[in-house]
């Protein structure tokens, strides 16, 4: 009977039911679309790391590493297998991973020990996983053939300039002696690996946010120890982006929780007299709560189904917006379904239980002050303690969000206590006061809106500051008009030709090569760094011999700073400056041409030209050198900025969803408020209130609610922006962004937040439910 009564209640309140359904469905949509896109991107990121290297957790390196080092370490490992230090080490293997030029093409050569069981199994997995491999060679060893069913002891060619070979063959290709190695691969057992995999499914990219396990063996002290993430920064970079997006995807769900709580409060306000009577008739509160929460759960299930379907379409749309020239197929896994249904149910059930407890007058938030102090300290630790990684930064944001949410109610109480001194037209004064008059009915919805606006401000500050720095970097770098890349012989010819052209004001050549430094693969770019060239990297004078400029990521990975020495190929350099290199996935070092880099003409990898007639020169050179790639810097800049903007389309959409959900939350809250207000409204009608005045009051009510949210959101959003720029970005990507408090970063979120609140105040579709102004009499 009670269930039937609740069902009828839901039917009689179609608008608030629909709003709750829509809000939760939007939250699920956000989570599902982020998950689908993330899974797709993660798959692509995994392909960035060759399968042969993917299983290793750490890489040991030192200058002049040879096979004897590996065997010595291996012997110690085998002898001390029971030793605590070595117990978690599952595998050691010699590895080669270098880049060389073969027939004018840059090729990455990976050398592996094919007779290591682990290597063979990884190789088999890589072969199965990566299509497009052309397995060529001869069967050299029956045992290996049995183990792998693949040809070995030969060059195994892959596409994309990757070449996998037996160590001996790799050494031969690289022109190394038969002992030399790049590093020793280590597999360390991670007891939390399963947990991390699950965490990665729950919040894609989360593994990038978790602290990496350290290699704690004494023997490793003689080596530079690199984690898989340090060894392959591109993959780590991508996962950090995913983590950012996933965290943002959770925002809409969090705001949806605020919404559902608000809906539950609103419904209970109407149902409570009935429940009270049923309780008097002998029905336990627990049973009534069960029925109510069950109804909320039913709502959550329906919302989850809607959200799953909508999430799929949103993922397609966002993918098309971000990667317009590719098509993606998204597969629904049980993880997606579980996340969608689970989050919707959690939101509805927890929201329902809390609202019911509130209606019963049970304590919910005792010791709030102590909790806030504790939370603030915890957030501080997340910000200050660098080792807490991305997770620490996002935990700080989450804690600050909850702290702000907890502060809404006391703020409303504070404002209410001072409401008698508010001035202005009586009707507007009335409405403005109403916005702070019922803290229990409005606080949660205002908290939701605050959070959505603050996140929009924080993201806006980060993106705008980032764009400003990125744009400034591009401006500095683009001192030239054309950039030419391709075969070094043709580049040499081009240089000789252009040097005599009057229209060409300046010709700058660059020689790039990969070197391993302290175990890290870095790109060394040799050129003539005169005042103009150095200025492109923000360095105020020409680069002298023995000096090096290091990219921010390089400084982080190599653990060097300005003034410290850095040895490159047995030559010691002094680090004289760091430069921003947004978007770089590999650390870069800039050295003067005369030292530290090949000086022969054959080493030129790119040429930049400064000319007053870029189009004409480009066309002319392209005709002469059809195989070279000639690009205009202006176009590169434009493309770079367009790509930058495209990258943040997802974040904008997710914030918009959160704002919509927050707007719905405010609407539901105001609906509850109108229930409170119905008697006053009846009175006002009797006093002769006009329709326009009524609309003005609604506007003022929504505007005041929006204003309260904005007042809280501005400092909170600025804090978010600072954490994103100064804490999360350096930890995730290795670069720093100078936080710029531009008004544009605030105006858009505040405008949308204000519109959401005012619209919620003005929309009066729910007259039938709320008893509209005229209907109440």
């Amino acid at each position: 009977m009670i269930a039937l009564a609740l069902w009828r209640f839901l039917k009689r309140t179609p608008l608030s039911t629909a709003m709750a359904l829509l809000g939760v469905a939007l939250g699920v949509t956000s989570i599902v679309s982020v998950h689908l896109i993330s899974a797709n991107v993660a798959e692509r990121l995994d392909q960035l790391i060759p399968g042969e290297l993917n299983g290793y957790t750490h890489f040991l390196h030192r200058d002049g590493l040879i096979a004897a080092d590996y065997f010595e370490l291996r012997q110690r490992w085998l002898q001390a297998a029971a030793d605590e230090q070595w117990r978690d080490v599952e595998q050691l293997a010699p590895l080669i991973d270098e880049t060389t030029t073969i027939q004018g093409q840059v090729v990455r050569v990976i050398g592996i020990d094919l007779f290591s069981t682990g290597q063979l199994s990884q190789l088999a997995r890589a072969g199965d996983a990566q299509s497009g491999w052309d397995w060529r060679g001869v069967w050299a060893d029956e045992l290996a053939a049995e183990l792998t069913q693949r040809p070995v002891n030969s060059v195994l060619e892959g596409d994309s300039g990757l070449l996998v070979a037996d160590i001996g063959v790799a050494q031969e290709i690289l022109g190394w002696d038969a002992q030399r190695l790049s590093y020793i691969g280590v597999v360390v057992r991670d007891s939390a690996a399963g947990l991390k995999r699950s965490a990665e499914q729950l919040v894609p990219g989360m593994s990038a946010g978790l602290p990496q396990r350290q290699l704690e063996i004494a023997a490793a002290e003689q080596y530079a120890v690199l984690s898989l993430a340090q060894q392959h920064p591109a993959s780590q970079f991508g996962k950090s982006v995913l983590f950012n997006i996933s965290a943002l995807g959770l925002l809409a769900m969090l705001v949806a929780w605020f919404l559902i709580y608000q809906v539950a409060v609103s419904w209970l306000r109407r149902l409570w007299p009935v429940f009270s009577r049923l309780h008097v008739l002998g029905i336990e509160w627990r049973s009534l709560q069960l029925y109510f929460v069950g109804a909320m759960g039913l709502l959550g299930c329906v919302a989850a189904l809607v959200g799953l379907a909508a999430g799929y379409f949103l993922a397609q749309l966002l993918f098309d917006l971000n990667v317009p020239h590719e098509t993606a197929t998204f597969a629904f896994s049980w993880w997606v379904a579980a996340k969608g249904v689970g989050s919707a149910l959690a939101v509805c059930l927890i929201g329902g239980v809390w609202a019911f407890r509130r209606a019963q007058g049970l304590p919910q938030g005792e010791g709030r002050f102590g909790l806030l102090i504790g939370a603030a300290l915890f957030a501080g630790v997340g910000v200050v303690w660098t080792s807490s990684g991305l997770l620490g930064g996002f935990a700080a944001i989450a804690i600050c969000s909850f702290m702000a949410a907890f502060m809404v109610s006391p703020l409303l109480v504070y404002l209410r206590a001072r409401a008698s001194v508010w001035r202005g037209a009586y009707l507007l004064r009335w409405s403005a006061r109403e916005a702070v008059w019922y803290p229990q009915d409005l606080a949660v919805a205002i908290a939701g809106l605050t959070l959505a606006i603050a996140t929009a401000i924080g993201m806006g500050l980060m993106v705008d500051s980032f764009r400003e720095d990125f744009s400034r970097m591009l401006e500095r770098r683009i001192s030239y008009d054309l950039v030419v890349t391709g075969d070094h012989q043709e580049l040499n010819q081009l240089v000789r030709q252009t040097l005599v052209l009057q229209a060409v004001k300046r010709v700058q050549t660059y020689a790039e090569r990969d070197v391993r430094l302290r175990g890290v693969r870095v790109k060394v770019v040799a050129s003539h760094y005169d005042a103009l060239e150095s200025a492109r990297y923000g360095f105020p004078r020409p680069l002298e011999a023995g000096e090096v400029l290091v990219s921010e990521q390089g400084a982080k990975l190599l653990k060097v700073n300005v003034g410290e020495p850095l040895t490159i190929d047995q030559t010691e350099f002094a680090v004289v400056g760091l430069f921003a290199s947004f978007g770089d996935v590999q650390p870069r070092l800039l050295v003067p041409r005369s030292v530290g880099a090949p000086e022969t003409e054959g080493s030129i990898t790119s040429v930049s030209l400064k000319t007053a007639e870029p189009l004409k020169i480009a066309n002319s050179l392209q005709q002469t050198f059809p195989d070279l790639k000639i690009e205009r810097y202006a176009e590169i800049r434009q493309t770079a900025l367009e790509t930058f903007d495209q990258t943040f389309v997802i974040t904008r959409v997710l914030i918009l969803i959160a704002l919509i959900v927050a707007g719905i939350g405010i609407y539901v809250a105001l609906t509850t408020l109108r229930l409170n207000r119905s008697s006053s409204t009846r009175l006002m009608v009797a006093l002769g209130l006009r329709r326009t005045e009524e609309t003005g009051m609604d506007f003022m009510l929504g505007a005041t609610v929006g204003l309260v949210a904005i007042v809280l959101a501005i400092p909170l959003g600025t804090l978010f922006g600072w954490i994103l720029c100064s804490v999360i970005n350096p930890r995730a990507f290795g670069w720093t962004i100078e936080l710029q408090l531009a008004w544009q970063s605030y105006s858009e979120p505040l405008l949308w937040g204000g519109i959401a609140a005012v619209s919620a105040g003005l929309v009066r579709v729910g007259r039938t439910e709320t008893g509209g102004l005229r209907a109440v009499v």
Partner: protein
Amino acid sequence: MPAIIQVTNLCKSYLDGDNRVEVLDRLSFDLDAGCSLAVTGPSGSGKSTLLNVLAGIVACDSGSVVLNLNGQCHEVHSATQKQRTAMRRKNIGYVYQFFNLVPTLTVLENVRLPARLNGRRDLDDVAVDVLGEFGLGERLHVFPEVLSGGEQQRVAVARALLLKPPLILADEPTGNLDAGNSLKVAELLFERSQRAGLSVVVATHSEAIAARADYHLQLLAPGRISLA
């Protein structure tokens, strides 16, 4: 001098589910200016409906309601909602049984509200004086939630009287009060309106209050009346 209220063959019905309930059926009466009328009757007999129709808050089904207020003749039965709203704002004071005050406005602001709605600030000081006369001079700047029921109703009466509207409608203004407060509030309402020459229509269950009025209209059952 024409009657301030002229009601002729007034009919008003409501839909209750599928059934139409005739609340007022061919009701006719006049009330002279400056006189008071008590409307009594059992619950559901149409007392509140009659007041709402007189104020133009709800439209009647048929018949005519004509109010002569401040020298103007208002044909309420045929007026648009906008016209009825304007009429109410300028010429009618209203007192309800419950929730008479806006909770987010102070006592003084509540009393000043009808004046401010009419764009009149000249009555600001008068509002202070009236509240002082009603024994609420110390409570001007508090919010209604701290007032007792009797005090709240006194504020409501003060508000209804501030503009000195020719007609005051009171819908069970003392129904929520104890006997002592009830008589006090009723006395204020009748005495002050009489002194100012205002007409009052009071819907009430109270015999004592009904006896205080000049005329007594008893709604017996839907459509049936007894005039005294």
